[in-house]
């Protein structure tokens, strides 16, 4: 049997490992879009700040793949799926057959329609490549602009602060707010950031970016102009599911799965941030974002692909938790 896993994040790698642990004779191919070994995305800021080294960043090694006999195809992505033929097509037109397929492509930050126009001037902050690019430029970066209100922004702010950069943080609301934080930290976060020396511009948003000789110029809705060496901005996060377009698989924002992580297409499973799973309390499909949830979903998907019948238990807690490490611990104090 051949199990193909699309996505080499924590969900995909956990699924691959789980399958091999159950039955080492199953052929497993893991396809990852990035060139690198699978890494802890939530540790990227620590990596940027040289708090951790390479080996602490990666959670699977070349030996891991050799030992488990998992074929890891990094730097490649899938452009379409044919559930009827049970094949996938990679971006270079290679056609690969599968018996069971797992979709674990995660999610990505997105820009709104206004800022999309200025995408070439905006530094993304999501992948290891982003971090390595920033590291390369770090010595010439002095002034930074950050826009966006999810936890990775908070993470980024902590990193830039730790690196001693001048930060201007633009927020839409009156106070800086981040969902899924521990309640007590959530209340204080605005003051906390200001006390760290971050210049917060409230009730505003960037509407135009210009590249000048050496700097960028960010213009806000309220006609403020901020000069910066680097601009970080994103407005929402969406599941990466463009490759299932055209395939007969039920989806909303993400790919819909049942508690066994099965999609509506036979022998196709999905796990992690690209999926929506039915939440009985919310009575709706819901993206169970986050690293620990993705890992658990990958494990359940792997078990079921290997022939078991194990349901995924919905994680009820909404408090963001990084492997037991609270987000405020990120400020390295």
């Amino acid at each position, binding site marked *: 049997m051949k199990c193909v896993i699309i996505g080499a994040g924590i969900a995909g790698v956990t699924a691959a490992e789980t399958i091999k642990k159950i039955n080492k004779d199953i052929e497993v191919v893991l396809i990852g879009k990035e*060139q690198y*070994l699978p890494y802890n995305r939530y540790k990227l800021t620590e990596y940027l700040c040289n708090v951790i080294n390479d080996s602490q960043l990666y959670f699977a090694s*070349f030996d891991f*793949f050799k030992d488990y006999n998992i074929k*890891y*195809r*990094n*730097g*490649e992505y899938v452009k379409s799926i044919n559930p009827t033929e049970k094949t996938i*097509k*990679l*971006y*270079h*037109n*290679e*056609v*690969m*057959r599968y018996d069971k397929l797992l979709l674990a492509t995660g999610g990505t930050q997105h820009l709104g329609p206004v800022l999309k126009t200025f995408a070439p001037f905006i530094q993304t902050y999501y992948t290891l*490549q982003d971090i*390595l*690019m920033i590291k*390369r430029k770090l010595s010439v970066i002095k002034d930074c602009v950050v826009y966006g209100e999810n936890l990775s922004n908070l993470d980024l702010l902590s990193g830039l602060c730790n690196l001693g950069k001048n930060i201007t943080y633009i927020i839409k609301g009156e106070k800086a707010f981040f969902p899924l934080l521990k309640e007590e930290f959530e209340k204080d976060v605005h003051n906390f950031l200001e006390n760290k020396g971050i210049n917060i511009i409230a009730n505003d948003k960037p509407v135009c970016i210009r590249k000048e000789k050496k700097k960028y110029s960010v213009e806000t809705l309220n006609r403020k102009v901020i000069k910066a060496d680097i601009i970080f901005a994103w407005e929402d996060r969406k599941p990466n599911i463009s490759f299932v377009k055209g395939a007969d698989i039920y989806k909303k924002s993400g790919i819909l799965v049942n508690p066994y992580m099965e999609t509506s297409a036979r022998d196709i499973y999905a796990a992690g941030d690209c999926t929506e799973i039915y939440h009985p309390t919310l009575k709706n499909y819901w993206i169970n974002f986050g690293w620990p949830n993705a890992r658990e979903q990958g494990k359940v998907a792997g078990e079921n692909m290997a022939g078991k019948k194990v349901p995924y238990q919905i994680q009820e807690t909404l408090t963001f938790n990084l492997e037991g490490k609270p987000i405020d611990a990120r400020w390295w104090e």
Partner: protein
Amino acid sequence: MIYKELTVRFCGIAGDGIVSSSRIVANACADAGLHVMVNDIYSAEIRGLGKSTSTIRFAGSKVYSMGDGINALVGLAQQESIDEIKDIQAEGSVIYDSSSPADIPEKESLASHIPPEINGFGIPLKTLANQASGSNRGRNIVSMGALCYLYGLPPSIFKDQIEKIFKRKGDKVVNSNLKAFDLGYEYCKAHYPLNNQFEMKTKARPLQVISGNDALAGGAMDCGLKFFAGYPITPATKIMEITAKELPKLQGWTIQVEDEIAAIGAVLGAWFAGKRAMTATSGPGLSLMSELINLSVMAEIPAVIVNVQRGGPATGLPTKVEQGDLNISLYGGAGDSPRVVMAPTDSKDCYTGIQAAFDLAEKYQTPVIFLSDLFLGQRLETEDIKHNINHKKSTRLKPTREQLNNYQRYALTEDGVSPLIVPGEEGAYYSITGLAHNTTGNPNFESKVHLAMTQKRYKKFKNMLKDLPPVEIIGDEDAEIGIASWGSTFGAIYEGMQIVREKGIKSKMIKSIMIYPQDEETFKSFFDSCKKIIVFEMNYQGQYAALLKSTYNIKPVEVHIPSVDPVSPAKVAEKIMEVSDELTQ
């Protein structure tokens, strides 16, 4: 990652522009003052779309060999390139075409064979080439642009070269190729922005790129070659192509004859008539020439015979390298048949060595077999060759007026060399024959005459020492491990010695382009100073080791590499370390 040297391989089939790609890269790097070595490997079949590869190694410092493995593979033909992946070093790259219009089965896809330690870069080469020129041609130039970005090389050096190469085809071709290059560069910048860096030399002067065959032909013409006769054979044909083009400009001649026997016959005729002459062949051709080489020995007519060795025996491996022709060069012939055998180690040796070969041949009236090989002959390398040009050079010992009065062509002299005249000169009447002869050249079969003439022919070799190119001892003088090798293996061995040196293991090597005769005293004292001797060579028998063993009474560790690929410095290093371990135990 910051690279100080890079090895890049282009792989494809006929029409993919493999060789032209590597030439552009090599010349671009050399113009920027980088040291370069290029090795082409192609199939022996003349017909069909055979696979070919061209590998370029370049660095800021001198490159002595093709090194071990490659950093980047440009796979212009998917299936053909799969086998090349094994040579890629960890963290290396594969550039492949992601714009194949047809579906590719997993097994035939280059990408599916790339291990995770190696970075695959799928680039729509065909699409971008089409965008640049309106046709699929130019995929190689797109890939070059990609390569340039991925390794942080300065684009200007490639663009200058593209302009230079395509200039004769007109502006349209130049511009479409420049556009193809830019598209490859920009695609990588946009999709794979995190590139490597290459440490370029600053203020470096441009270097000359030359092949062993180029250098050899150039060296021969610069020292008075006036006549070339040959029959085409891989990998020696290039020499004839060069002389055919260049010799007429020097009032010389090149003739392509019906076979190698005719070629050596014509060369002997030209020398007999007083012209410096040469032929070039490979193993099968040398076999055919054996009889007339014997005539050269017996009649004491000079001859320069270049053998660009390839894999044997028989027609063997026409496009692969081997050093299997040493025995036939040394011993191939009837009777006691001494001849000079030389083996250059690099292009510089090809240039200076062939000039020495002419001087020895003419002065000592002997055949000289000049043993190059496919790797040395065809590889391109940057060499700083000091040109030594004398189109009228002659080292012929001419008779005095007095000697002409009673001219004895084979007069017995102290050093064995008899004055030699050109037929047609006044008093130049003598017989020439392959039969045993007396001092006048007339046939003579008396035992004492035969002995005297044989001694005379060997005596020349004893007295040749003062004119031989010098022997070099390379490495640590006080090393206990001594290495001997010959020909093109030198570079890989030298780099192998550097590898072990960094690990604290000392070694030294005796480098001489003379195989026979040799500066025996220097060789002997070198061997006496070593506790262990290693002899590396690219043949199965250990032909050079056999010569050294019989001459110097040594018991070396013999490393026989019947090779199709150039010798690996890492394997040389491994062997030196093994011998070093034995010494310390």
